[in-house]
């Protein structure tokens, strides 16, 4: 009997032979209620931890996650006559037995005795099944081992020896999201996952790097330096293309190209997205289409007054095709383009083809915005502009491949930040990003959206997000949004709201067997090493393959 | 309940009627007896002695002593500290139906040091007799209950003697819950004489030992039914020549007892004068232990007790006073001497004690391969049947 209290001491990271409690009720949809064994105290539990439930009548094992912790009593009277603070003994006797802890467990997976791989739950364990804290072994079995397509992203809380591995093949199959309020480490997680994807070679990534977080080294708040993707993959798997050569150079980034978009390449569709940023009304947007149609490819230059075509414009006004006031307003607003250094008069470079080519070759592209990152309209414009055209090429390529006239395009993951600006319910229906999110992997293009305000994202798009990696969110609407379309989500809310502000994330969805709260992997030399190692192996393999080809083997 | 009470009602009514009539008759007789006592006291001593002599050696009356027979004596002073010793015994008689043949004598005793404030010393000494010479004395068959009782009486006296020895330092009174005259010696004996002699000499040795320590010795008889004094009164009323066995046997006071007489005479705490018990026992007299007695009002509700003392106590006023006052003090709370009540309690062998004893014996016999012939069930029956107490005396206050 005296060992009990010592067991209490051990409880915590060390799983014990004693069950934490027994299942006393619940359902598959709402989760299980577990009465906690008197020997354990709720004070040592934590939401987000894993439990293993051994079926009482079968050999089935269930995995679940603690989603809520509560206190209860067998008799409501107890609340009216609780032991006083000095009645230690009474308190000790009553707690655990009459007054006891409960926890809510969401069952996630089940494993039959003769099976290796856990499957999603289709039923629940019976009454009084024993609930144990999951051991490292149990959790390990769920998350598998790291290999070429399974990438280690973090460890479950209190289980440093267990790796949570993201199934990258599934991750890129559908759009994914990284959410969290600012400062919670979204970009670190994103960078980690991207490193994994790039290393696996399963997909190319196109990263619209608003804050210059991905390409080259970044500094955190404390001034520590972290390597960018371009540095992690020096072998050519990552290209950095900048919109702001000056800034990139100043930062010391190695830049593989500079993006210049010619006025003539911009179509009204590209501008339409900017409506809210540029203050374009519906009437003005309609006018843009008309102007572009009337004025041809040089329509922007004409509107900016660079082409001496004032009379043409005046004619349109005179003909009553367009209101003079509308035209003036548009022209005033178009002055914005002049401030965007990456926009150049004329036809510009053949950037889209170049980027598509790289992506299709398996090279990921980081598009550094430099100082333009601070201008939302520039970000939206470029992301929209490039994505539309690249997506178009993927569609074409995919169709060709379907007709047996070309190779399958290499899968592509497009990373956008501040995604709610692209995917808000007003516009998501008719933007390229909404389309990509909805069409799933039909054309081998998926999104990885990074956002701090998931509530601003269109519900329909949100529900298409396959894998969600969520850092701390405290806005109720954001939390609700993150869980939209997730079954049993209610229970996980408590978990999410209680994450640490840094380096903790709830991962759920397509790429993990069950929701998991992780302490995200440190973005440090050990990560570099694991990437570097892979890189080295890949190089060797490629060299070998080259030599084989050479000798006609 | 097997007794048909309703059927008995008429008889009970007759019985009650008869008792009432007898009580009325006694009420009528008592004043006469009282008068006789006073008249007897007036008779010349020599004349009375002649009459007693004439009554013969089988007359069971009382002989006056140096005290006038109608005198009463108030309670004497008690010393500040004194010791009272009580002893009592009980026994299990031999039983042919028992597991084995044996008898048991258990002596309980108590020593109260009055004035000390300390708890009395108590003791209980059981002794088991099972050897052939104990069970079959003098080859005359199984030992009789009378002999076992005699042995018990001797053991009681021996215990008193043992305890008196340890109380030489201060006034000591040794009390026996019985008359002093060894009962077995008063029987018309068909007992093995040698055995009775052994018992008697043990008994007398005990008395002598007590005498030697300087302690007083008394036999206390609660609610005595004797009428020795009344016999004397009747004798005194007879003319000398009319005295014969026939006239002595039928006397007017024969339904009265001395106790009734003295209950009218004695105020609380007072004693009657001493009488000598007749017929006197030669062995006791020769050994200097001729027995005298007096009646004593013990203080509560006309309780008259008879106290027997040896001559050497009777004629030693200090010892006599100690006996008188000591018994009064002992009776003050419990109605009878406390030491005797306690000695009895310590001695008594209860049914459950007896069963436990037999069970232990049974176990030991079994261990030695002897299977008792009596089944547990039969034993239980017997125990239920034998409702009466094993002790001859069962008078608790």
């Amino acid at each position, binding site marked *: 009997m*005296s060992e009990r209290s010592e067991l209490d001491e051990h409880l915590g990271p060390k799983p014990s032979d004693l069950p934490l409690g027994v299942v006393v009720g619940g359902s598959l949809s709402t989760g299980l209620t577990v009465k906690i064994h008197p020997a354990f105290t709720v004070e040592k539990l934590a939401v987000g931890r894993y439990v293993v439930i051994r079926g009482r009548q079968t050999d089935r094992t269930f995995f679940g996650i603690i989603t809520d912790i509560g206190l209860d009593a067998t008799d409501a009277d107890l609340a009216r006559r609780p032991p006083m603070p000095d009645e230690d003994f009474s308190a000790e006797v009553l707690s655990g037995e009459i007054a006891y802890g409960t926890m809510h467990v969401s069952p996630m997976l089940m494993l039959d005795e003769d099976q290796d791989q856990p499957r999603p739950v289709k039923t629940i364990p019976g009454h009084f099944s024993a609930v144990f804290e999951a051991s490292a072994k149990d959790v390990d079995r769920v998350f598998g081992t790291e290999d070429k397509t399974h990438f280690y992203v973090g460890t479950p809380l209190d289980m440093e020896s267990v790796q949570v591995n993201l199934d990258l093949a599934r991750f890129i199959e559908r759009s994914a999201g990284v959410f969290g309020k600012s400062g919670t480490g979204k970009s670190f997680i994103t960078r980690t996952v991207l490193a994994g994807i790039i290393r696996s070679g399963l997909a190319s990534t196109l990263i619209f790097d608003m804050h210059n977080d991905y390409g080259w080294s970044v500094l955190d708040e404390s001034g520590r330096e972290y390597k960018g993707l371009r540095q992690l993959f020096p072998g050519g798997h990552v290209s950095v293309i900048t919109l702001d050569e000056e800034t990139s150079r100043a930062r010391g980034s190695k830049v593989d190209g500079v993006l210049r978009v010619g006025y003539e390449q911009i179509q009204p569709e590209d501008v339409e997205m900017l409506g809210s940023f540029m203050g374009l009304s519906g009437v003005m947007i309609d006018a843009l289409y008309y102007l572009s149609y009337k004025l041809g490819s040089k329509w922007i230059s004409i509107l900016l007054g660079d082409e001496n075509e004032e009379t043409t414009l005046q004619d349109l006004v005179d003909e009553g095709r367009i209101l003079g006031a509308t035209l003036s307003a548009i022209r005033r607003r178009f002055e914005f383009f002049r401030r965007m250094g990456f926009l150049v008069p004329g036809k510009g470079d053949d950037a889209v083809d170049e980027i598509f080519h790289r992506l299709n070759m398996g090279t990921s592209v980081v598009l550094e915005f430099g100082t333009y990152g601070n201008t939302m309209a520039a970000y939206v414009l470029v992301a929209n502009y490039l994505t539309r055209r690249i997506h178009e090429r993927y569609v074409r390529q995919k169709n060709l491949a379907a007709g047996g006239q070309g190779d399958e395009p290499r899968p592509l993951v497009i990373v956008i930040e501040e995604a709610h600006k692209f995917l808000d319910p007003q516009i998501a229906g008719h933007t390229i990003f909404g389309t990509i999110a909805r069409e799933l992997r039909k054309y081998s293009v998926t999104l990885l959206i990074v956002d701090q305000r998931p509530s601003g994202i269109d519900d329909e798009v949100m529900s298409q997000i396959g894998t969600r990696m969520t850092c701390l969110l405290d806005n109720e609407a954001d939390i609700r949004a993150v869980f939209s379309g997730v079954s049993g989500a209610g229970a996980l809310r408590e978990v999410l709201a209680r994450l640490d502000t840094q380096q903790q994330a709830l991962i759920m969805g397509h790429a993990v067997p069950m929701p998991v709260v992780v302490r995200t992997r440190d973005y440090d030399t050990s990560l570099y090493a694991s990437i570097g190692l892979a890189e080295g192996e890949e190089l060797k393999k490629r060299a070998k393959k080259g030599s084989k080809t050479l000798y006609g083997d | 309940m097997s007794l048909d009470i309703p059927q008995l009602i008429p008889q009970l009514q007759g019985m009650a009627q008869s008792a009432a009539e007898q009580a009325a008759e006694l009420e009528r007789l008592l004043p006469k007896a009282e008068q006789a006592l006073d008249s007897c006291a007036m008779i010349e001593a020599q004349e009375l002695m002649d009459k007693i002599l004439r009554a013969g050696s089988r007359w069971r009356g009382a002989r006056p002593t140096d005290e006038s027979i109608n005198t009463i004596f108030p309670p004497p002073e008690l010393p500040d500290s004194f010791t009272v010793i009580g002893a009592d015994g009980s026994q299990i008689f031999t039983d042919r139906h028992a597991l084995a043949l044996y008898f048991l004598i258990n002596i309980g005793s108590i020593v109260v040091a009055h004035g000390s404030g300390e708890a009395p010393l*108590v003791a209980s000494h059981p002794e088991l007799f099972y050897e052939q010479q104990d069970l079959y004395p003098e080859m005359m068959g199984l030992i009789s209950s009378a002999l076992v009782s005699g042995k018990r009486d001797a053991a009681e006296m021996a215990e008193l003697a043992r305890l008196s020895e340890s109380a030489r330092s201060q006034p000591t009174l040794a009390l026996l819950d019985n008359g002093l005259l060894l009962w077995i010696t008063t029987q018309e004996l068909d007992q093995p004489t040698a055995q009775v002699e052994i018992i008697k000499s043990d008994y007398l040795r005990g008395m002598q030992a007590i005498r030697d320590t300087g302690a007083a010795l008394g036999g206390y008889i609660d609610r005595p039914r004797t009428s020795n004094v009344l016999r004397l009164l009747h004798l005194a009323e007879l003319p000398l020549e009319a005295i014969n066995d026939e006239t002595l046997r039928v006397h007017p006071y024969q339904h009265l007892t001395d106790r009734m007489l003295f209950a009218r005479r004695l105020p609380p705490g007072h004693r009657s004068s001493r009488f000598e018990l007749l017929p006197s026992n030669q062995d006791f007299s020769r050994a200097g232990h001729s027995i005298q007695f007096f009646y004593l009002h013990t203080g509560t509700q006309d309780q008259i007790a008879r106290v027997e003392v040896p001559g050497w106590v009777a004629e030693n006023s200090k010892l006599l006073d100690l006996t008188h006052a000591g018994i009064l003090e002992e009776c003050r709370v419990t109605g009878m001497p406390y030491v005797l009540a306690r000695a009895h309690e310590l001695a008594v062998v209860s049914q459950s004690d007896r069963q436990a004893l037999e069970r232990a014996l049974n176990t030991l016999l079994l261990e030695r391969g002897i299977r008792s012939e009596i089944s547990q069930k039969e034993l239980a029956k017997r125990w239920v049947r034998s409702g009466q107490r094993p002790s001859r005396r069962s008078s608790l206050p």
Partner: protein
Amino acid sequence: MSEKAVLIARVTRCSTRSFVGASRLPEADVPTFGSFCKARAQRGQSEVIGLIYDIRIEDDEMARQIAIAADPSQEQLADNRVSRLIPIEISCLAVGYSSQDGYAYALPPQPPMTLDDVFALSRDEVMAFTQSMDFVPLVFSAPGLPADELLAACLRYSAEVRPQSEQRAFLVEAGRVCARQLAGDVARLDRLVRNLAP
């Protein structure tokens, strides 16, 4: 460590649920409320473990007389306090029995027989018997007993026979067992637990 078994009574009447024993004992040996005792049963094949729930000092004429006397002597008072055996009747609830396999926490198959010896359980035996609390429900379910006071006394005593360091843990565990039984009656439980508190 083996202590001599103290005979405290002999069985006078019994059933499988309980038994009553009687004896005269010096005051020092009179068992206490809530202590354990045992009586032989099944011709010695087992021992019934009893929990003493009632101790009756039987009517004693002499003691009564001394009590009401105006001025009993000091010696008599002392005698009655120290030397005299007190006639007692103890009532015991059967809470288990021992057999070759150890203790069983259920009513015995047979009661002890009339006049079987009743012994107090030694400290070691109490410790062994109370290793399990399975007897507690038997106490709660016995009708007409002061079950709560009885358990409190019994469990406190059972704690006392244990090493100091284990006593509190024992009482907590015991309290929890009681709590399980009294889950629906917090007021009663509260009193019981207060009585248990070390």
